[in-house]
């Protein structure tokens, strides 16, 4: 359909304050909706670790070691493929750049693609270029408090420039890969890259 069909009598609620800040097809919410496809995993911090795995070798941090890494506080807009966007969310976490540098020093070799793997088996795939260069964090805090389990705590990936399903909740591992490998939603009809500004919601969009 080239021309969108005009819905008789529909006016809608324009969000002028959001102009320029809201990707196409999104609306602003002040809530923080929770979305996940299964029960919320509960991993005790004593059993939690984080792994950055490259070819042949891996770097691993316990919860305490992870807490000792340099931390950043970032304020970002987030956009969920289910159409809501939330402005000015405040997160605390470790930049993926920091993890890559630490892992690199331990001999972990990068690859052009990343697969994030979570407790419960969730996965999502991203190009390395989209988690490096100050674009992504492993967040353990939200709004000044530890990240709640339903929002992905103890730690979730934060990749705010892509639809939020890429910001894997309960993340435990980043695998650096030679080849791209579709993650969970990416295998179930969602877009492989997921740029909200190009409205890449589903496979085949753009």
């Amino acid at each position, binding site marked *: *359909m080239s021309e*969108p*069909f*005009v*819905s*008789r*009598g*529909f*006016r*809608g609620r324009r969000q002028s304050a959001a102009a320029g800040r809201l990707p*196409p*097809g999104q*609306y602003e*919410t002040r*809530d*923080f*909706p*929770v*979305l*996940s*496809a*299964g*029960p*919320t*995993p509960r991993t005790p911090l004593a059993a939690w670790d984080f792994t950055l795995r490259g070819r042949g070798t891996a770097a691993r941090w316990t919860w305490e070691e992870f807490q000792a890494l340099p931390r950043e506080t970032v304020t970002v807009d987030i956009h*969920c*493929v*289910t*159409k*809501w966007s939330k402005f000015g969310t405040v997160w605390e976490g470790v930049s993926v750049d920091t993890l890559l540098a630490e892992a690199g020093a331990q001999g972990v070799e990068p690859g052009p693609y990343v697969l994030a793997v*979570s407790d*419960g*088996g*969730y*996965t999502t*795939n991203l190009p390395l270029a989209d988690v490096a260069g100050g674009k992504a964090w492993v967040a353990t805090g939200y709004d000044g408090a530890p990240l709640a389990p*339903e929002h*992905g705590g103890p730690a*979730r990936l934060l990749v705010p420039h892509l*639809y939020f*399903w890429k910001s894997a*909740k*309960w993340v435990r591992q980043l695998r650096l890969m030679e*080849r*791209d*490998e*579709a993650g*969970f*939603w*990416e*295998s*179930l*009809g*969602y877009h*492989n890259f997921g740029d909200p500004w190009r409205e890449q*919601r*589903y*496979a*085949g*969009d753009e």
Partner: protein
Amino acid sequence: MPATSETVSTARSEPTASPTATTAAPAASRARPIAWRLASVVDVVPETPRARTLRLDVPGWPGHRAGQHVDVRLTAEDGYQAQRSYSIGSAPEELAVALTVERLDDGEVSPYLTDELRPGDRLELRGPIGGHFVWDVALGGPLLLVAGGSGIVPLMAMLRHRAIVLAGANDGARHRVPARLLYSARRWDEVIYRDELARLHEGDPTLDVALTLTREPPPEWAGFRRRIDRMMLAEVAWPPAERPHAFVCGPTPLVESVAAALVDLGHDPAAVKTERFGPTGGAT
């Protein structure tokens, strides 16, 4: 993922190795787009004081699986657009695609769908969407459905599909896919599909329907009268040893507590599929 999703848990602890994966990723980028289609409203059915079912004729509709949803897009005269996701309530076997929409007083899209649309009006949508929260008879049973409020909609698609496929089937076929529904609504008149659920229940010894009313149950009410809790699930749900396929849909607090209770009772987390409903998927 309508009331869709950012994140998930699944059975696969290790993603499959290269053969599937390397073809899957490029295939995704080559896939045909999910086209916007112009549906016609065939019928508007009041379900409760707040919910209406829109029965739609969708030219070129590719078919769906029970549990999937569509994206609806409204366009104003000046080009302003709003999109929302709605679950499909009809069975794949039915001709019309039915969406049941609950009116949110402060909503931007739902009041238009419930109050303005008339038979003969048209509506843009695309779908079906979602490949996780789906069930069909071929997947087998037992089936455990837990709904809160309008979270009944995608579960109703599963029950309707099941009823259509099993119509005329022998007892053996029925007993292979027994189903139990536990449905929480606030009040009696807010129970969506109330009469149809009663009919399905009466005509099928392998389907159990349990209702709980959390506010103002009628004086003669003999069903549950509290929020779904672990004890209620232990009473109503299939025991974990039966390995039911569980689908939980409703507002976030209900989904969170029901999913956690099911895991607590010993159900395999990978067999518990969830989907959130509400203004924005259910706020917390």
